[in-house]
C-alpha cells in the first residue's frame, strides 16, 4: 500500500502530471516494483511511472511496457541489472522504484 502512495507522489512531482500514464486494467497478475524482483526470474514490464523524459530514455534502451525482462542480479537496496533485448542494463536505485513488473510463470 505504501508503494502505491509513493508512486502517486512521484508521478505528481513529474514534469507533466497532466499526462499521467494510466496503467493496464487491474487483473490477476501480481504487480510488484522492479526493486523487489528476484534475480533469475522473468518479468513482464507493466508500466513505467514518471515523466515523459525518463520514459523516453528507458524506451530507447528497450525498456518499455509489455517487454519481457530477466533480472540478472541485484545488489542491495534496489540497484540491479536486467537482460532486455539481448543486452545487460544496469538500473540505479531510483529507477527500480519506478518500474512495475509482474512475474511470468514459465511453466
Amino acid at each position, binding site marked *: 500500500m505504501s508503494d502505491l502512495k509513493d508512486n502517486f507522489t512521484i508521478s505528481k512531482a513529474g514534469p507533466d502530471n497532466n*499526462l499521467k500514464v494510466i496503467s493496464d486494467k487491474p487483473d490477476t497478475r501480481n504487480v510488484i516494483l522492479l526493486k523487489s524482483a528476484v534475480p533469475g526470474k522473468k518479468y513482464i514490464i507493466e508500466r513505467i511511472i514518471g515523466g515523459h523524459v525518463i520514459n*523516453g530514455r528507458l524506451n530507447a*534502451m528497450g525498456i518499455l511496457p*509489455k517487454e519481457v525482462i530477466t533480472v540478472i542480479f541485484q545488489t542491495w537496496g534496489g*540497484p540491479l541489472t536486467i*537482460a532486455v533485448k*539481448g543486452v545487460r542494463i*544496469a538500473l540505479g536505485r531510483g529507477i527500480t522504484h519506478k518500474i512495475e513488473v509482474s512475474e511470468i510463470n514459465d511453466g
Partner: protein
Amino acid sequence: MMDSDSDVLLENGETFAKREFSNTAGKLRTITAALVGSPNCGKTTIFNNLTGARQHVGNYPGVTVEQKSGHAIFKGYDISIIDLPGTYSLTAFSAEEAVTRKHLIYSRPDVIINIVDASNLERNLYLTSQLVELGSRLILVFNMSDILNKSGTLINNEVLSELLGAPIINTVGSKNIGTADILSKVIETFENTKSTKAVRINYGEEIEHEISRMSDYLSRILDFTASFTGKYDKRWASIKLLEQDKEVSEEIGLLLDKKSTILLSDFVKKTIKHITGIFAARPATVIVQSRYGFINGALKEATIKKNEMVLSFSDKLDKVLLNRFFGLPIFGLIMWIIFQLAFKVGDYPTRWLGLGFEKLAVLISGIMPESLLRSLLVDGIIRGVGGVLVFTPKIAILFIGISILEDTGYMARAAFIMDRIMHKIGLHGKSFIPMLIGFGCTIPAYMCCRTLEDKNDRMITMHINTFMSCGGRLPIYILFAGVFFSKNAGSVIFSIYVIGIVMAVLFAKVLRATRFKGEAEPFVMELPVYRLPTAKGVAFHMWDRTWQYIKKAGTVIVAVSVIMWILFTFPRVGLAQQADTSSRVAAVTQSYNKNEISSQQFKDQLSGIQTAAGSAKLEYSAAGRIGKFIEPVFKPLGFDWKLALASIGGIAGKEVVVSTLGTIYSISGSENNSAELKNAVSNDYNPLTAYSFMLFSLLYFPCIASLAVFKKEAGTREMFFQIGFTLLLAWSVSFIVFQVGRIFI
C-alpha cells in the same frame, strides 16, 4: 548483397586512401557522410578504419563527445566523414542525442552510415528505425558480424535490407574487414539518382489517423518548403509532436505567432489525450512499441536461423565484480594496483630520463661558452621541459591502466558500483566516468560530462571534476612526495588523490544544496559484454593520451619555460654586484691557496657565496620581484616566493609548476655544479610545506586550457565561479593544514 567492385582490402584506411590520392589528385568529387550508431557499437573503430585516424575507442558510452571528422580519398572521391556521438535514439534526451540529430537534420549529410552492433540487432536497429524515418540516404553497417556468425544466428541480409530500405554491409571493425566495402557503397549510394524506396513504419490505424490529422493541421499553418521547415517533412514533425519532443515543438513555435502556437499546443495536447485514452499509454510509448514491432517483424522475416546469445561468461564475471560485498573493494584494489604500478615501476624509466636530461645539460654546458643563450638552453628549456618530460613513463602507465579498464567494459561496471555512493552525494554513477577520466586529463573529462542528461548533474560534475587530480599535477606530487616522504611516497600521493575525492564529494553536496537544487537523474546504463582488450588498441589509446602530454611539453611548456626564463634572468644584477661576487670568490680562493683554510672550508664558503649570489640574482629579476610582491598572500600557507611563483606559472598548466621550480634552481645554482632540483627542494622546504603545497596544487583549477573548455561547455559565469571557488578553497585548505600542522611539528 555486398558490393564487390572493390575487393581491395588493405592494412588500414590510411594506406589505400593515400594510394588512391596519388592517382586522382586534383579533381575529387566530395561526399559528406555521417557515422551514427548506438553506444558500444564499435563506431569509433570504423571511423578510424575509414579515415586512418587514431581516435580513442572505449567500451563505454560517451567516448565520442565531440564531432570528429576525417577524410577518406577513395576512387576519385573525397569522402568527408563525421563521427557523431553515440545515441540510442533521435529523441534528443541528452546533449549527445541533440548534437547527433541537429547534425543529421540541419547539415544534411549526403549519406548516413549507421553502424549497427550485429551481435545485438534488435536493440541497435531501434535507432535505424528512426533514421529510416528521416528519409535520408542510409547505409547499414553490421559491425562485429563475426560475433553474430559465431553465435550461430544467420540473417538474410538481402531480405532485411529490402525491409529496412537500406543496403547492408558486414564488417569486423577490430580486424578492419569491410572498410573498402563501406566506401564503395557510400559512393554508389551517393551516385544513385533514383530516389530510394521510402520505408514507412506503420503505427497502427489510430495513431496513423492522428498523424495525418496532425500533418494536415501543420501544413495549414506552416510552409514546409521554407528554409527551416523544409529540413523535415510534415509526417516526421507530426510524429515528433506526438512523441512530445521538446526541441521540435520549440522550433515550430519559433515559426508561429503567439496565438497559433497556443492553438497548435492545444491541438497536440488534445490528440495526445485522445490517444492516451485509447491505448492506456501515452503516444510516445505506443510509437516506440510500433518501432520495435517493425524491427521485430523485419528480423523475424530475415532470420534464417536463430541462436540465443549466451552471455554466461559476462554474467558470471559480473556476479563477482558487481558483488554487493566485493564489488567496491575490488574496484578500489584495481585502482590501487594501477597507481602502484605507475609509481613503482614507472620510477625506473623516469630516473633514466632524468639522468639523460642531466647529461644533456652537462654536455651543452661543456660545449657552449658561458652566455645568455646557454643559460636559455640549459636553465630555461632543458630544465623546464625535461622536468616535465621525465614523468612521461609514469603517466603512460596510468593511461594504460585506464585504457584497459575502458576497453574491457569494466568502466561501465565501475559507474554502477559507484552509483550507490554517488547517489548519497546527490549524483549518480554516470558522473563517476568523467571523474575517472579526470585522473588522466580534466579537459576530456569536462567534455565527457555531456553524457549526463540533467543540466544540474552536469554542472555539479564539471565543478567537482577539478578535484580529480589530473596527470599534469602528478609531477608536483612525485617531486615533493619523493623528496620528503621517500619511503611512503606512494601512500602520500594516494592520500592526495583521496583528499581530492573527498573534496569532490563534499562540494557535490554543497553545490546540490545551494546552486543546483533538484534530484539526481536515475541511473540507467548499458553494461557492455566484457571484451578482451587488444594490445594494439590499448597501445593506441595510451599513446594518444601520452602524446597529448608530450605535445604539451613541446609547445605550451617550452613557451612558458622561455617566458619564465626571461622573467628570471632580467633585469640582471649590476656589474658592481657581479664584481663583488668575483672578488669574494677570489679572496676565498686566495686563502685556500695560502693553506689558511681546509679544503672542506673552502668548498663550503665557495658554495655559500655562489648560493647568495644566485639568490640575489633571482630576487633582482622581474620574476623574483613578482614573487616577492605576492609572497605575503602565500606566506600563511608556508610558501616562499618561489612556490608562490611556481603556482602562478601553474595556471598555464600544472606541469609548469615543476618546470618553473627547475628553472629557478637551475639559475640560482652555482654555475659549474648545477644542483639537482630534488636536493634544492629538500634544502628549502620541509614535509609540512611540501604537503600544503601539494594540496594547494591539487585544489585550484587545473589549467588555462581547461578553463577554456569549461567556458565552452558551461558558460562564462560558471567558469568564473569555478576560478573563484577553487582558488578560495585551495588557499583555505592549505592554510588550515599548514597552520594546524605547525602546532604539532
